[in-house]
């Protein structure tokens, strides 16, 4: 009885390991076939893009029109036109800071345009294009609390979104100013806004232009801003060809003013 149990245990363990190795194996095959990835997208005739659905002006799912609106979906449509000939050939997939990485890895998405901040650490895992937007970190606070600048938040609880670079940026700034903060990491921006309203946190911190979408009568954005964050279009590490193509496009649109026009449409500058 005992022996069969042990045997069963060993067997299931072996199966589990096999599963993991199996997954790893298929991963490897995909990377070796990378050269044709750009062609594959063109053949498919539709690009799958991960965008935010909860960031007004950047990537927002409008519940009235049921359409993805904002600067980032607009860029995605431009890319679709470039790659497939029509800007309607985009399939939008809503992502959060947490899901955008894994969705790229498993091939669910061709690219992510979702306020993805470029860092050296992240560059080891994914390809980033040249930045299409730059923004600094800021704080959204309740008016009643009368905070004036970053230093006045000393010892307070700062709410940041999980999987974002915000916390590191604040940490660095706090060290420079000689102050300390407590942190709460929550899953999404709306959750953070709710936490601010219910006084769970004293400040909601993320990139300033994202914050502008969440200001209301009882809250304000502090003037202070720091550590500029650069957003890039993200693709799988193996898709170098696609990355180069996107890089070229971004450079082109930067120079001919196409991007500027999009920013104006969405009140971003």
């Amino acid at each position, binding site marked *: 009885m005992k022996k069969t149990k042990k045997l069963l245990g060993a067997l299931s363990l072996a199966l589990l390991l096999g599963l993991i190795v199996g997954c790893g194996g298929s991963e490897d095959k995909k990377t070796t076939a990378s050269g044709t990835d750009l062609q594959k997208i063109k053949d498919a005739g539709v690009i799958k893009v991960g965008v935010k659905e909860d960031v007004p002006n950047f990537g927002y799912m409008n519940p009235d029109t049921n359409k993805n609106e904002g600067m980032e979906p607009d860029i995605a449509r431009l890319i679709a036109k470039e790659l497939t000939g029509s800007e309607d050939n985009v399939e939008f997939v809503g992502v959060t800071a947490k899901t955008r990485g894994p969705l790229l890895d498993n091939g669910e998405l061709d690219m992510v345009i979702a306020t993805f901040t470029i860092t050296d650490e992240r560059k080891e895992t994914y390809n980033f294009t040249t930045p299409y937007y730059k923004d600094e970190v800021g704080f959204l606070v309740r008016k009643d609390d009368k905070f004036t600048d970053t230093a006045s938040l000393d010892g307070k609880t700062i709410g940041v979104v999980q999987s974002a670079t915000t916390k590191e940026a604040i940490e660095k700034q706090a060290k420079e100013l000689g102050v300390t903060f407590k942190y709460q*990491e929550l899953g999404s921006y709306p959750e953070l806004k709710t936490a601010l309203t219910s006084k769970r946190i004293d400040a909601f911190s993320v990139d300033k232009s994202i914050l502008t979408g969440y200001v209301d009568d009882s809250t304000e954005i502090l003037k202070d801003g720091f550590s500029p964050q650069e957003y890039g279009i993200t693709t799988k590490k193996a898709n170098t060809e696609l990355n180069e193509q996107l890089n070229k496009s971004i450079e082109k649109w930067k120079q001919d003013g196409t991007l500027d026009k999009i920013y104006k449409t969405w009140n971003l500058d």
Partner: protein
Amino acid sequence: MFIIANAGPFALYRWEALFKDWRLFADAFLYTILLAIGSLIVAMLLGIFFGSLSTMHNKLLNLISRIYVEFFQNTPLLIQFIVVYYGFPLISPMLTFSTTTIAIICVGLYHGAYISEVVRSGIGAVPKGQFEAAYSQGFSYGKTMRYVVLPQAWRIMLPPLTNQIVNLIKNTSTVAIISGADVMFTANSWSSINLNYIPAFAVAGFLYFILCFPLANFARKLEENNKKAYTR
């Protein structure tokens, strides 16, 4: 071996990074254990209390116990967390509890309802004849329970009870949603910065497994013993 070579999500250097930061996961593991123990105490107290209420011959007490059980069994744990975390402070600043307190109370209340049902059905499973026999020997209600019914009910209750404990341990991971630094949250938070999500969640799953597996095994063994005790 090719997994190790490439830079995919399974790459070896990601696992190395994880073992370098083992302290983070060790702390998270301890926090999960703390939550589990805390909420288990709450759940046991509530479960025994409401379970006994429901076996008493009093309509009002039965009803109270019923309401408690039905409410917590039929609403998701996640909603209870969100309501207490975001909603309560809006009612009054006095109701602002720490993340740990919320986790222990919510998981405790939720599983208290299930344990209450385990207690009720355990006592209910003891044949009526046992009560009658005890009464006929002059035992009072309390003594009947203590010397005749509970020793038999206990045996019936134990396996489902251990299953509840396993579920309770797994459900403590809900605290991650309100920023409590347990195993789930740490895996999430740590892997989001360096994108090593495969090792992070594999290890998180493993940590829950080594907590729950021995308990689940224990429950099965108890069940086998029960079978032997009642069959000749």
